[in-house]
Structures are given as C-alpha cells and as structure tokens.
C-alpha cells in the first residue's frame, strides 16, 4: 500500500518528537545555544545603554571646551549638530511611533514555562530524558506546592500546537509550554477534559506562576 501525504506528515512530526526527546546531545546543544543567545541579548541591551552614556559625556565635553577663539567654529559646529539632532529627532519620532503601535498591539502575550529548564538540561549528565524531565518537574512542583493560588482567571483554549494558547476576556494571550503542560498533567493539576474551545479557570500564585488549569464550571462572560 502506498504511503499517503498525511502519513508522511505524521512521520515527520513523530521524527521531530523523537529527535527532541531522545537525543540528549540535541537538548544540551539547544540549552547551550539558548544560554548564549540570551547572554548576547543582555550584552546588546547593556551596550546600547553605554553608547547613550558616551554620547551624553561627549556632548558635555564639547560645551566645556568651547571658547571665544573658536566661536566661528563653534557656531558652524552647532549648526551641523542641530541639523544632526533634528534629523535624529525626526527619525526617532518616526521610529518610536512605529514601535509604539507595535507595542500597543502586542503587549498582551504571557509565556509560561519552566524557569531554569535549560540550565538543568545543560548541567545534567544523565542521558535518560525522563530522568531529566522529572528533575525539573520536581523542582517546579516543590516550589509551587508551598505557593497558594491568589488569583483565578477565566480563559478559553484556542490552540494546542505543541503549546497551549489560552485567551481571556481582555484578549490577553497566555502560552503554556509543552513541558509545563506535561508536568501539570502528571501532577494532577490539569482537571477535566480540555480541548480547543474549552473554557478554563487558570489559578496563579503570588508570583504569577500557573498552579493549575481546570475546566471552568461557569461560562466565560466577556
């Protein structure tokens, strides 16, 4: 019997899953890359702050060294600098306008996964995926057991593609990572038959961590 395109698609997804879960070298490599990428992002953010500081110092120095003998040069320089500042200002206002629109339309995504998951994976020499998964699950459960639910939020499950996308009445989106869903499920913190379209109640602790996801008994009133 010939293999169908659908079967090829399923085989591809299975292969990706096998690759992710059974090859410890891939998990370690991924954790290494993650750490380096986040480090680079931090360095870049710090670098921008330093650049701004140098620019401010340079501007003060220019004012300090300005003297009457250099008035003509200073005037010429000032004109050039003002034109430059005007151009930068125009560019920044245009740029920040775009940024503000972007921030306005997207500042509603919250991601929930295991904190330090990558470090645990990178440091653990054990090759057994389940053992490593249990290690960070235990860490999460230990920290969440002592926590009490302080808020509960109604939401609807909208997507299940490797992660759960939950959307509340304010159209805020909560993404729950695949590992965290598995862990919550193992520990009985996901109650009821939850599928796409199901209305759920999300319980959060004081630090904003998800403690449980259960099928909501009350309809979502928006």
């Amino acid at each position, binding site marked *: 019997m010939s293999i169908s395109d659908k079967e090829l698609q399923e085989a*591809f997804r299975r292969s990706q899953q096998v690759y*992710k879960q059974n090859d410890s070298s891939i998990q370690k*490599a991924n954790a290494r890359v993650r750490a380096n990428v*986040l480090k*680079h*992002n*931090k360095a870049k953010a710090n670098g921008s702050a330093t650049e701004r500081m140098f620019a401010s110092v340079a501007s003060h120095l220019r004012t300090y060294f300005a003297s009457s003998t250099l008035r003509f040069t200073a005037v010429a320089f000032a004109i050039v600098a003002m034109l430059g500042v005007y151009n930068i200002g125009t560019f920044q206002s245009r740029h920040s306008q775009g940024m503000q629109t972007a921030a306005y*339309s*997207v500042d509603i995504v919250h991601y929930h*996964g295991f904190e330090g998951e990558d470090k645990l994976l990178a440091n653990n020499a054990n090759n057994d995926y389940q053992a490593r998964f249990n290690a960070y699950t235990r860490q999460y459960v230990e920290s969440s057991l002592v926590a009490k639910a302080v808020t509960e939020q109604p939401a609807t499950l909208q997507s299940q593609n490797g992660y759960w996308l939950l959307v509340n009445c304010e159209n805020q989106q909560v993404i729950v990572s695949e590992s965290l869903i598995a862990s919550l499920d193992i520990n009985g913190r996901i109650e009821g038959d939850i599928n796409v379209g199901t209305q759920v109640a999300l319980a959060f602790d004081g630090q904003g961590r998800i403690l449980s996801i259960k099928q909501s008994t009350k309809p979502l009133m928006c």
Partner: protein
Amino acid sequence: MSIGVSLQSLFQGKREKALGVSERLMLQYSAKGDEASLAALFDLHSIKLFYFLKVLSDSTIAEDICQRTWIKVIEHRHLFKSGDNFQAWLFTIGRRALIDEFRKNAKLEYSNEAVETFLPSELVKYVQSSVEDDVAKGLEKDLFKACLEQLPYKQKEALSLQLEGFNLSQIASICGAQKETVKTRIRYAKDSLKTMLEKL
C-alpha cells in the same frame, strides 16, 4: 463614533486578529528587546529550526548555524514588520546562514539538483547503516529522518519546509526559487521518500 474611526478600528482589529502568537511575541521583542519574549520565541521555534538545519547538514554545523540565526534575529529585530510570518523569517535567515557556511567551507554541494543520483536499493542500504549507527549510539530508531537525509539537498530542503507547514509561496520565497520549481522538487522528494520507506 465617526465612520473613519470605526473603519480604522475595524482594520486595526483585523490586523491584530491576523497576528499569530509568534508574530506578537516578535513585535513585542522588536519594540522592547526584552529577554522574556526572546526566550519564549526560542522555546517555540528552536527545535524545529535545529531539526531543519540538521537534516540539511550535521549536528555540529546545525548548532553553530542555529546560534548565528538567533543572533541575527537579535541584531535585525527592527527589520521584522507587522504582517511578516515569524517562522518563515527565521527559517529564511537560518537557510541563508547555512548556505554562507557551505560557501565558506565548501563542505557540501548545496546546489545538488540530482534526482536519481543513487538507486533506491543503494539509498536503502545507506539508511539502514545510518539507523544502525544511531541505535549503536543508544538513540531511538528514526527511519524517517534517515530516509529524508538521503534525498538530494534541494529536494529535502523543499520537502522539510512543506512538512513544517509552509505553503508553496512561502517555500519559494525562503528558497529564492520559482513556485513550479519548488513543486517539482517536492514531488520528486516525496516519491523517493515513499519508495525508500516502503522498501524498509
């Protein structure tokens, strides 16, 4: 409310509705440069990118290119625009970085267009030996990946992208090829892959 305002809110609503989770996260990252959004994007897409690069090269190159790709995402985050598909943007960067690496090191003939370089029986032998190597290393048998890796470069590239969920236009844009060419590559790739899998 004026007609202008209601039309504006309608279009705004449509635009926001069309944005996927990754696109929202990327726009959030583009505006703020925050670590949380970048980490979330990484967690959602990294393994898929890693798998794509590994099928086209090897583990060492895939790790290196994966890191370079994410660093480019950081460096060029301002170039991502609302309406772009994040995964297509990420894979385009990754694919270009991989080709640059091949050009620099001449490690692989990436322009391999050959359709029938080897007979299916020969390919099956390669697959069996590759799977045996994996099992000897303690890894789970993955016949599908072993077969996919045996395909000519451009065929496995196009097929991997299609199986990842990209449509023909997106694949053509990522690979810088005509839609018809991509279609042909995918057809040949599927035929060879099915033949190999059926013989195993």
